[in-house]
């Protein structure tokens, strides 16, 4: 890709010089439309890895096809799933896994792509969930309209609260988002005007849901919706991240000040990320409503956000597939760890082991600590770490003996 550019350099100097006269950067960018010579370099990975890797590049498609046909399969997956792949129970669990994979991917738009540590993402998820449910229950909207209403509510709320909380940065931002989400959670619990049903939640009205989404025999449809949500989220996030805006996000994540010095206002870009992530979470709430048949306040708690955080970190924040992987694994684990916790294998253990092992949340917390500690970068970076360990080049050079430096800082 280097060759094409070479011969045009002299003319370009002139262009640049001409640009100077106009003074403002905006204008001269327009008159360089002439020679769109070099192809967009695209994904850097493709340039580094060729051949086999190019073929392997299609694995997401293969995976998607596998996911799509899963309901037709009676394949037993002992240990992983309680029942054959295509059974309603398995499909329901898989659908939840995929939903959370999508939610985590959306959340990582903030954490891993823009560097925003939000502790209040569950609020937008819960907004989509409750607004859709209430749209049907209270406004008697048909499902599709209620879903649009629900997602719009999340988007608007994200826009409103995002524009406030993004005015502070760092830990302040985390705390404000946490506080807002806490307020939301309290509001839901408080059952204002009987709307949210408080701690009991509200189940979705069966009469307003499409009949194809009701009943156990239609679990596959719900599953496909979850697949659709995941594909949509992943596509939206990947597309956005690859887009020019995504480049700005990456810049903001890595060095916000530097982006500002280029003349871009990070606030707006962060807000876009916040609203997009909020909207995707809201849409996730709609899917969740379908999957669980109702809205319950657990969805709005700060624990729900923490769960997303755990998923993202588990899988690998800022990586392409990590959050998805983390979301799927976490959801699967939190459903199946319960089985482990209740299994007879655990019940027969001495109390020192049995008591902690019978607490799924303990297992999750401990697992999380272990991942943070042992797998910096999450599961998605594991192959790269193994590869670099094998080739002997410990990639992120763990500072040599001379760098022993307890505080990591230098006198300013």
């Amino acid at each position, binding site marked *: 890709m280097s060759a094409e550019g070479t011969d045009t350099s002299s003319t370009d100097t002139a262009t640049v010089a001409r640009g100077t006269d106009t003074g403002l950067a905006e204008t001269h960018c327009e008159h360089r439309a002439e020679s769109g010579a070099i192809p967009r370099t695209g994904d850097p990975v493709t340039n580094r890895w060729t051949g086999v890797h190019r073929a392997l590049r299609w694995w997401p498609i293969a995976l998607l096809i596998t996911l799509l046909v899963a309901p037709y399969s009676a394949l037993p997956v002992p240990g992983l799933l309680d029942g054959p792949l295509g059974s309603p129970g398995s499909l329901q669990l898989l659908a939840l896994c995929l939903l959370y994979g999508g939610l985590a991917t959306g959340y990582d738009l903030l954490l891993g792509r823009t560097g925003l540590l939000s502790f209040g993402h569950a609020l937008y998820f819960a907004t989509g969930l409750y607004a859709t449910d209430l749209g049907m229950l209270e406004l008697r909207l048909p499902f599709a309209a209620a879903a649009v209403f629900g997602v719009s509510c999340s988007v608007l709320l994200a826009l409103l609260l995002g524009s406030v909380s993004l005015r*502070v940065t760092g830990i302040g931002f985390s705390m404000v988002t946490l506080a*807002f989400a806490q307020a939301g959670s309290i509001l839901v619990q408080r059952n204002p005007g009987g709307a949210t049903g408080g701690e009991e939640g509200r189940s979705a009205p069966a009469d307003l849901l499409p009949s194809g989404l009701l009943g156990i025999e239609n679990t596959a449809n719900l599953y496909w919706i979850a697949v659709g949500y995941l594909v949509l989220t992943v596509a939206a996030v990947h597309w956005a991240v690859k887009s020019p805006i995504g480049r700005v996000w990456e810049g903001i994540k890595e060095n916000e000040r530097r982006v500002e010095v280029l003349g871009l206002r990070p606030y707006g870009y962060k807000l876009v990320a916040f609203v997009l992530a909020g909207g995707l979470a809201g849409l996730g709430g709609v899917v969740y409503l379908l999957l669980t048949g109702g809205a319950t306040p657990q969805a709005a708690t700060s624990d729900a956000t923490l769960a997303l955080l755990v998923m993202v*970190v588990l899988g690998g924040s800022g990586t392409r597939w990590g959050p998805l992987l983390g979301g799927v694994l976490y959801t699967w684990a939190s459903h199946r760890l319960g089985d482990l916790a209740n299994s007879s294998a655990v019940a027969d253990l001495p109390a020192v082991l049995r008591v902690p092992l019978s607490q799924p949340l303990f297992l999750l*917390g401990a697992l999380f*600590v272990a991942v*943070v500690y042992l797998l910096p970068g999450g599961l998605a970076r594991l192959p790269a770490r193994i590869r670099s360990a094998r080739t002997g080049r410990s990639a992120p050079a763990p500072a040599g003996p001379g760098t022993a430096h307890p505080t990591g800082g230098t006198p300013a």
Partner: protein
Amino acid sequence: MDTVVLLFCTGLGLGALYFLVASGLSLIFGLMDVLNFAHGALLSIGAYATWWAGAEAGLSFWLAVPFGTLVGTAAAVLLELFLIRPLYSRPRDQILATVGVGLAVPALLMGIWGADSRPFPQPELLSGTWHVLGATVPVNRFVLVAAAALLLLALRLFLARTRYGLIVRAGVEDRAMVTALGIDVRKAFTLVFALGGAAAALGGALGGLYFGSVNPGQGTGLLIFAFVVVVMGGMGSVTGAAVASVGVGLVQQFANYYTGAGLGDLSVVVLLAVLLLVRPRGLTGRLA
């Protein structure tokens, strides 16, 4: 009038409870830049240890509280040595690791002692009431206020008078220069964590008095308000945390009572948002 007095006194008590939790949080953040999500867990550990010593092991309340505080301190030291210290160079991972501990510890407590509240030993001396200007105020609120005031005083004395306090104050300003004077800052970190843990555990023990019971989620429940207090007080400032604690406690108590729907929590949230927007560095101006 007596209602206002009552609200004021109990609001102070609530603020004192927040301060007991937030002081350690603030101290740890100030020196180490670690937002300790496991702080609620330390509180719960202190509360359960006190409860265990008092109710199960049959110790008197006056011995149970130091015991609980000691256990909480030990837990904090272990946490610092084994979890935080290896992650010194990875600040965000430190936060995440404490999140994990914050999830695991309450679950463990639940596994051992069940999810239900356990009645907390209440010494006769502290279960009565005092009459203040026509209001009947529970004595333990004053105990909390006194404990918080003592803690504030002790922390200020520690910071002002002791060598380690000196190290902590200097470390907040310039960590590297402290090491350049031949001081092992890591020891100060462990100490600060221990202190924070002790304060949290004491908060847990006295929180048991306040709630009359202990349950696994108690610490985590208080943590969010402690965070709010720390941020409002200006991260790292113990005095700022004290001021913010009192403010939050009073606002919450009055708002809970006087607004029909009980908007106490919401008003605190709004207070935080407004304060951060007006003064992004909190009350005392340290950089958030």
